[in-house]
């Protein structure tokens, strides 16, 4: 992603407005129910998304084995867990700056519920909205820097975008989930002179590993036919360890 796009994402955050009158709730009050990881990654099999749950259960990296996954039978997906953010307005998902700024890894764990809630809320619309090849697509569907409400001196204040230090980013980058309803989740970090922020993006459900193997095979055949050096490929970078 270009820096121009990142800057546009930064500007986008300024357009969000905090509404008043809603009751704030601490993230610790939001219970998280584990669900079975959805292994289906065929983008063609999920036109009608079941948005009962968005988050996968754990953040452990299994494999980029999109090609090895099996399609569950329609209607039998194990996606019955309600969202963390069901019934919550966006203003109710907040954290304090002390939760994640300048803290150690252990202390940073306090920010996890907020991060999960934020991901759920911000990605829900983007999963539901189809990505057609025609028409115009609003920017907010694919440009999303991490913005939100924080508690400052006991009062909620809007920050746009949230300033993620490198240490904070490294913590959240290793944080679950890596997949949201089978969509691969990518968290990119952008540094500028004045600030640095985090972008969350979703990848379509396709077989990345198969594409890489096929490309690698074609390159090796071409190199062998022309007596060139063999080629080496690396995996889907960015989803290997995040």
């Amino acid at each position, binding site marked *: 992603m270009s820096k121009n796009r990142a800057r546009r994402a930064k500007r986008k955050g300024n357009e969000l407005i905090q509404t008043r009158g809603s009751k704030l709730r601490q993230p610790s009050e939001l219970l998280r129910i584990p669900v079975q990881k959805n292994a289906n990654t065929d983008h063609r099999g999920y036109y009608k998304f079941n948005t009962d749950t968005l988050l996968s259960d754990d953040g452990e990296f299994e494999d980029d084995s999109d090609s090895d996954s099996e399609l569950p039978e329609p209607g039998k997906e194990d996606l019955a867990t309600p969202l963390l953010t069901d019934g919550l307005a966006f203003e109710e998902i907040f954290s304090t700056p002390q939760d994640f700024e300048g803290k150690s890894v252990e202390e940073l764990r306090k920010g996890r519920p907020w991060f999960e809630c934020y991901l759920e809320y911000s990605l829900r619309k983007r999963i539901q909205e189809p990505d057609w*090849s025609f028409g115009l697509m609003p920017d907010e569907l694919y440009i999303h820097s991490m913005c939100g409400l924080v508690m400052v001196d006991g009062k909620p204040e809007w920050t746009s975008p949230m300033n993620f230090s490198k240490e904070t980013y490294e913590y959240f980058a290793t944080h679950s989930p890596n997949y949201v309803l089978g969509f691969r989740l990518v968290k990119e970090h952008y540094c500028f002179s004045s600030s640095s922020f985090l972008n969350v993006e979703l990848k379509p459900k396709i077989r990345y590993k198969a594409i890489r193997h096929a490309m690698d095979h074609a390159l090796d055949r071409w190199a062998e036919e022309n007596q060139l050096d063999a080629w*080496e490929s690396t995996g889907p970078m960015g989803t290997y360890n995040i």
Partner: protein
Amino acid sequence: MGIHRPYGYLQHLNYLSRLTCEGLYDSAGSKSFVDATFNPRSLVNARRFRPNEKSFPTMVLQVAYRHQTFGDLRSSAAQTYLREMDIQVFIGVKVYDDDKFQVFVQTRYDHGGYDEDYSDVYVRDGKLRSITEFTGEKISIPAKALCGASVGKRCPDFVLDVEMLRYILGTTGTVGPKKGREIVPLS
């Protein structure tokens, strides 16, 4: 064949840019990701001059994010990956929810000579294709971009078979040498 080094290879050592399994860092410390990277093995062996520091890959493949437009992916490839990093070839794939996809290939071309920083980006756009229909589209990638100037002029270009990508996008199951399943174009 001689050892291939990307153009501007030594320049990026000054910026301490590096490639890790976790992502691509640019000189500002920003971290972005691609879906696959490809390198000649001789380059992989040659560039390990320091532990934990590598050069940028020769070719990368990036699938556009959901709701990211084709044009945005193309512009970001030219600005970020080909001009700011030393990546030579960028393959971009945009997959839509309505069984359509589009591929482009961008190639970095250095003019060389006294102005080493000056480089152009050549773009080859594929057409919007249906995943369910056979396509005979092929996009050629210059051998010089992939293997460096040491490649002779008689070396043919590498041909990216768009039908291969379409077949993978349009089918389920395992495709690859491990399972012994061949990629056969649909007629």
